[in-house]
């Protein structure tokens, strides 16, 4: 997008007609992306806690306090008593600096970011089956798809430009199948809406696979040439007759078979999925189930097809690529791999910790037990966005030192000991990597608000105060170092990004044009792996005490915890009158109407809001958007974890709802 600037201030945002992704379109968040820049409550001076209060301080004092706190924590309890939560909104340069800061300055692999609560199961699941956890295809590929299967994703609201491509594919004749318990906007346009019960993705997909193998719709040649494990998969889904899958999922057997037939027998079928798949105790297994479906039908490695996790934040793909994860360096080079570690040790001139670090939620757990003493949180608001909020608050309050880099005094920043004000996307140079692995430049449009600095600059100064400088003098310099150590980014440079519309990784050399479609001739790790997965029930099911299933979702006009978008007046005005979507039958039984104040209780806590009666949610299920600090569903959501990716089950828990 283009920022209009007048007299040193950003006045508006405009789309780019010739951009291969946006093609002249933006969502409401994009059209209003500049509104927060000059919000009167933008942080422009560091804050330091004095007693109960956060008070303005000089950079000198604030950096000194932050460095002393980190030093103290390391001296008292070792490097693993510290941790860094990086940002999926800031640039690649910022994310790389954050992960280097954790590993080479603090000396811990305790670095993670919000991908933990969105697509960590994709990184884990697709990593196992294909060798790479990103979208296999490009967004523009939707133009070539003849069948589009969307599972647990609401792209018209959360990825509207991708949603736009799907809506545009319909009149062209592409078939659309949506699998979602909620009647999403896209479901209204679908040729087939599979409205499965919360937490029954695996039975649904296994039922489709059963029908595929039973009818010979599988891609036999592809399976033989490019995959392994087909026989075991076929055997494992034998028990998942469509009738059995129907009984578990609530989707009619005939619809399961029809969806299987359409998806399997179409030459080019594009599979997209979102957090409805990943935010479960079986998130990784859900992803593997979808991967099985795409591989069994031969839909990976060609134009107009693929398996495509839709990444949410502007740079969540990039933050993963940069290694802001506890077990990998940039480019998914494993910490546990001695050769990779040796390479980074040589590159950075430091010895590095061997043991993979803690995830965001594990860091919080460690804070509660006292094992983690100091935490740096960058551009993220776990006090609103992470599950079981009472526990999150308890964790953050248990820390000796919480250091927050932020644009605004978020709920998390309010709990901090030191708050450092940062530059926004419009005020700095760098790169973002979009969900289709496209690395693009972001260019400074206006001078930073007075008093703020880029994340990487702040981390460099902190590193210098800790006597372990990282050697960063410019954002371009950070990128160059990263590219030199990261094979999938090796061929990308700021200079190459000047012309055109970015490059899609892997891009391994200066002449490599990038990779719009992954796995075209072989999978990243050779053969595609089919891995049988069985049914895993949600950690909590409705019962007599908590009779309704609660799920969470996102609204078109709000981004994350709203720290940016809620400062745009026309977006804030869009907030619905109530934040609990409830089916008319469930509402009637409880004497609830739209606007009725309600209390939502679970085993972990309660939250109050108003009701919005709608048949867009099925009977027995209620739904809340997760954005709002005044009514955060994370007070009641379940922090039960996917044992592989450590993803909490944000998409289903049992609640009771009553008027209050």
């Amino acid at each position, binding site marked *: 997008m283009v920022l209009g600037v007048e007299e040193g201030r950003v006045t508006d945002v405009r789309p780019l007609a010739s951009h291969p992704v946006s093609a002249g379109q933006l*969502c409401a968040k994009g059209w209003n992306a500049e509104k927060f820049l000059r919000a009167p409550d933008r942080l422009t001076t560091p804050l330091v806690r004095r007693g109960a209060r956060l008070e303005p301080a000089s950079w000198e004092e604030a950096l000194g306090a932050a460095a002393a706190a980190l030093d103290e924590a390391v001296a008292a309890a070792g490097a693993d008593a510290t941790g860094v939560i990086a940002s999926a909104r800031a640039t690649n340069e910022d994310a790389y600096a954050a992960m280097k800061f954790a590993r080479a300055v603090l000396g811990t692999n305790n670095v993670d970011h919000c991908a933990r609560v969105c697509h960590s199961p994709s990184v884990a699941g697709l990593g196992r089956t294909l060798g790479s956890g990103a979208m296999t295809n490009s967004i523009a590929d939707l133009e070539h798809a003849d069948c589009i299967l969307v599972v647990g994703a609401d792209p018209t609201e959360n990825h509207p430009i991708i949603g736009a491509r799907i*809506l545009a594919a319909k*009149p062209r004749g592409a078939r659309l199948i949506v699998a979602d318990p909620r009647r999403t906007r896209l479901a209204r346009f679908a040729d087939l809406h599979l409205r499965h019960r919360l937490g029954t993705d695996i039975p649904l997909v296994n039922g489709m696979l059963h029908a595929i193998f039973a009818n010979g719709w599988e891609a036999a040649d592809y399976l033989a040439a490019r995959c392994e494990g087909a026989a075991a998969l076929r055997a494992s889904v034998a028990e998942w007759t469509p009738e059995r899958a129907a009984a578990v999922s609530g989707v009619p057997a005939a619809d399961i078979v029809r969806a299987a037939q359409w998806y399997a027998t179409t030459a080019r079928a594009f599979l997209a999925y979102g957090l409805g798949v990943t935010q479960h105790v079986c998130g990784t297994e859900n992803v593997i189930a979808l991967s099985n479906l795409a591989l069994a039908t031969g839909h990976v490695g060609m134009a107009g097809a693929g398996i495509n996790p839709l990444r949410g934040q502007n740079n969540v793909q990039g933050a993963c690529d940069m290694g802001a994860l506890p077990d990998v360096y940039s480019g998914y080079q494993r910490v546990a791999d001695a050769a990779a570690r040796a390479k980074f040790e040589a590159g950075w001139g430091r010895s590095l910790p061997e043991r993979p670090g803690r995830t965001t939620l594990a860091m919080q757990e460690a804070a509660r037990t006292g094992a983690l003493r100091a935490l740096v949180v960058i551009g993220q608001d776990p006090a609103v966005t992470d599950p079981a909020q009472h526990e999150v608050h308890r964790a953050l309050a248990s820390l000796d030192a919480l250091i927050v880099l932020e644009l605004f005094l978020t709920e998390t920043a309010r709990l901090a000991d030191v708050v450092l004000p940062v530059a926004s996307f419009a005020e700095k140079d760098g790169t973002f990597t979009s969900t289709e692995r496209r690395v693009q430049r972001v260019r400074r449009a206006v001078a930073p608000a007075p008093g703020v600095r880029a994340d990487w600059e702040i981390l460099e100064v902190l590193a210098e105060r800790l006597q372990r400088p990282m050697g960063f003098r410019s954002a371009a310099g950070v990128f160059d170092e990263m590219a030199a150590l990261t094979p999938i980014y090796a061929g990308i440079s700021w200079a190459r990004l000047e012309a055109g519309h970015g490059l899609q990784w892997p891009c391994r050399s200066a002449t490599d044009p990038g990779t719009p479609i992954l796995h075209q001739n072989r999978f990243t790790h050779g053969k595609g792996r089919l891995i049988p997965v069985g049914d895993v029930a949600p950690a909590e099911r409705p019962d007599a005490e908590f009779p309704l299933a609660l799920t969470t979702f996102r609204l078109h006009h709000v981004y994350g915890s709203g720290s940016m978008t809620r400062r745009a007046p026309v977006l804030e005005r869009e907030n619905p009158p109530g934040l609990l979507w409830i089916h008319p039958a469930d509402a009637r039984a409880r004497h609830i109407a739209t606007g009725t104040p309600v209390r939502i209780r679970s085993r972990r806590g309660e939250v109050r809001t108003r009701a919005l009666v709608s048949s867009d949610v099925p009977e027995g299920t209620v739904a809340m958007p997760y954005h709002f600090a005044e009514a955060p569903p994370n007070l009641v959501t379940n922090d039960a974890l996917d044992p592989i990716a450590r993803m909490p089950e944000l998409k289903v828990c049992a609640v009771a709802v009553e008027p209050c």
Partner: protein
Amino acid sequence: MVLAGRGAVDELRAALAAQRALIEPRWQGDGIEWVETTGSGPTAALAPFDWDVGLPLPSPKRFFFPPRETLLRWHGDAVEEVLPAPRPFALFGLRSCDVTAIAYQDRFFAADPAYVRRRAAAFLVVVQCRTACAGGFCVDVDAGPFASSGFDLALTLLSDERVLLEVGSAEGAAAIAAARLRTEPADARTRTIRGEVEAAARASFPPRPFIARARARLDAGEIRDEEWQALGPACLACTGCTSLCPTCSCFTMTDEVAAGGGERVRYWDSCLLEGFQREASGHHPAPRPGDRVRRFWYHKLSADFVREFGRVGCVGCGRCDVTCPGSIGALRVLERLGA
């Protein structure tokens, strides 16, 4: 109406640039933008005029009705009205659709002091369209391809060498004189050629009979509620169409309060947002997305507004078709309603 050599256009631009900011459509990076081509350099360094550049995606309304405008400022108890003091500028290379839209907005904002001041600072130069653009349908809504009014000057490229200059105002005539252009009066033959160029331009548009049918159905009240409600879910309320539409004029006001003072600011608003018309009680006169889509297109296409604005609201520029993520821009909607 006078005739000149093609090179006279660049002399005219240089003369205008000596007196005012020259703003022209140019390819910039990834799109066509309105670019101030004078900048700080000498006017002699002006690049030759680009006759073939397409329509910028942003409409020119931003020069009169900017996306963000401060209306008043206060500090303590002192309140100060803020009025723009724009330097004179020329929009050079407006197309018929956009100049038609400016005339439309002139009526809407006739009593708006900020708009009137910005508008008075503008000198408008139209380039008449010789061929249809990709998504434009000005011919079907009486807004082109040739503009007949609303400009200071209008240029028609008659051949590779000859340009016809039409004068629309005293300022336009003065500008030709000030530039000391070598011109000759347009004779009958020149007028014939102009007519032929315009006819060829008209003929280059694909026939779109559905537009007249859709407009007739709308004016006759024949469009059923189901048709609007079917369109409704495709509106994501992104505000793209209303931001780009050259005749959309809705705005909202907000007070931006800082320590000790603040500003009252107006921003572009959009009637397709749910909150635009929601009342404090929660009552909504257009509660369903389809209701809001109907209202929007009624305002753009209905003859009911001709009395107030002299024409229908849509000028056929096609921007909404480009920017709509739900594929329900004007042409797509007219196609469905006029099928």
